[in-house]
């Protein structure tokens, strides 16, 4: 039975410059090596961010996606949201008002998927639809 790693919530530091970003990444990177990592970064404390901070966020997202996981942001301040919009990175992340909301979003059960071995028109429903369409 497939299992999912627990959701990891981490609070970003007040200043996300080169030094802080590197230090933060050192803590986070091992967790990103898990299978399907689920990470929430709480941005509520951020007051200052530079290029290293933005790059770190993009790097973490890339690492998470490589392992079929995701990285979500929570409590993004209006100022940081403006910066993210300006830099066009806002659309890359799912953003939530609180870390709890972000965690909950990981826990939502996805609808069961079945492997499709036959073309859609071979199923009884597909044939019905085809007849109805004339």
């Amino acid at each position, binding site marked *: 039975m497939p299992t999912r790693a627990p959701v990891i919530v981490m609070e970003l530091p007040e200043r996300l410059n080169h030094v802080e970003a590197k230090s933060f990444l050192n803590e986070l990177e091992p967790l990103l090596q898990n299978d399907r990592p689920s990470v929430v970064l709480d941005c509520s404390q951020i007051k200052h961010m*530079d*290029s290293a901070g933005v790059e770190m966020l993009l790097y973490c997202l890339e690492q998470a996606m490589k392992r079929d996981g995701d990285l979500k942001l929570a409590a993004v301040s*209006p*100022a*940081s949201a403006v910066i993210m*919009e*300006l*830099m*066009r990175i806002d659309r890359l992340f799912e953003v939530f008002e609180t870390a709890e909301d972000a965690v909950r979003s990981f826990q939502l059960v996805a609808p069961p998927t079945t492997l499709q071995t036959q073309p859609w028109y071979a199923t009884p429903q597909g044939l019905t639809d085809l007849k109805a369409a004339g």
Partner: protein
Amino acid sequence: MFVGLGAVVAIGGKNQESSQDSSELPEGGDESFLDVPLECVEIAGRSMLERMLERLVAIGVERVSILVEAKNSARIPPFRTSYSNVAVRVVRDLYPAMTQELAHFSQDEISHAFVSSANTYVEADLLDLFCFHREARRDVTSTFDKEGSLDLWVVDCARAQRGDLETFLHDASQDGAPKYFIRDYVNRLVDPRDLRRFATDILSRTCETGPSGQQMRPGVWMDDKAEVHRRARIVAPAYIGYASKVKADALVTRLSNIERDCCVDSGTVIEDSSILANTTVGICLDLCHAVASGNKLRNLERDVTVEIVDPNVMRFSSPSSKAANSNGRSAVDEVVLRKTQMPETWQLNNLIQE
């Protein structure tokens, strides 16, 4: 009988609505965003001050005195038209200077004058207002619109100089005094949101005053020396200012205005925004619902001001040599941003590494 008509326009005064609680500056208001009085900021080629001057001159006002506080003296915008009957005076205190100016008018047989704050833009029939004042036979006539009192009066020059002008004008706004109701377009320029509204009203032709420059195709105005790359897209209505450049694959859309000496770099989207004079916006950015000036960005949707230190993202650009003319002093190129502490100010260093 000869009736002289003058005008005194004050720069730097707040309008009546805001002056009552002027100690409470709204967070991230115009003071924190721009160091220039908003009425001196060019929108679609001309400042609100110049547009008001145009209206005064058009009705035959003989003399216009623009009074500017010393702290704002270097920020009078360059006027596009040269006016022989417009004088700019740098003063320490506005009200005593206004009183003095009215005294000069009176000596020169100018019997009535419009007194206004430059941040109140009114498209009323000023001659009708003057006739209303004369028929009322009062010392002063105040004006108001559906939102309340306006910083525009007509005064009898001889009588207005007798006492304290501030009290004189204030008393005129009280009940009982004749008031002139203005149904036409009004903009009280209090914060950057009003600046943006003024831009959209000009571009959408909600108000009478229009953009400068030539209309290259319906709804797209371009000023002299403006350059738009053939792969850039300008969606009407829009304004591209003097000597501004819009580079390849850039998109300017939804009532956006790019003022003079600006540069919108490749791939950048300017949507529902005003880029004020001498601003360079970097490559592949999304600037939406904002007013940008130099390295400062006021997002109107989120009501927050962001300061960007990285010159690759946003910066002041140098003005072209012909930007200023003889009548006014160049405003924006002399702006030095204050180091103010703002609660929501961000600094973004070296955001793009090339």
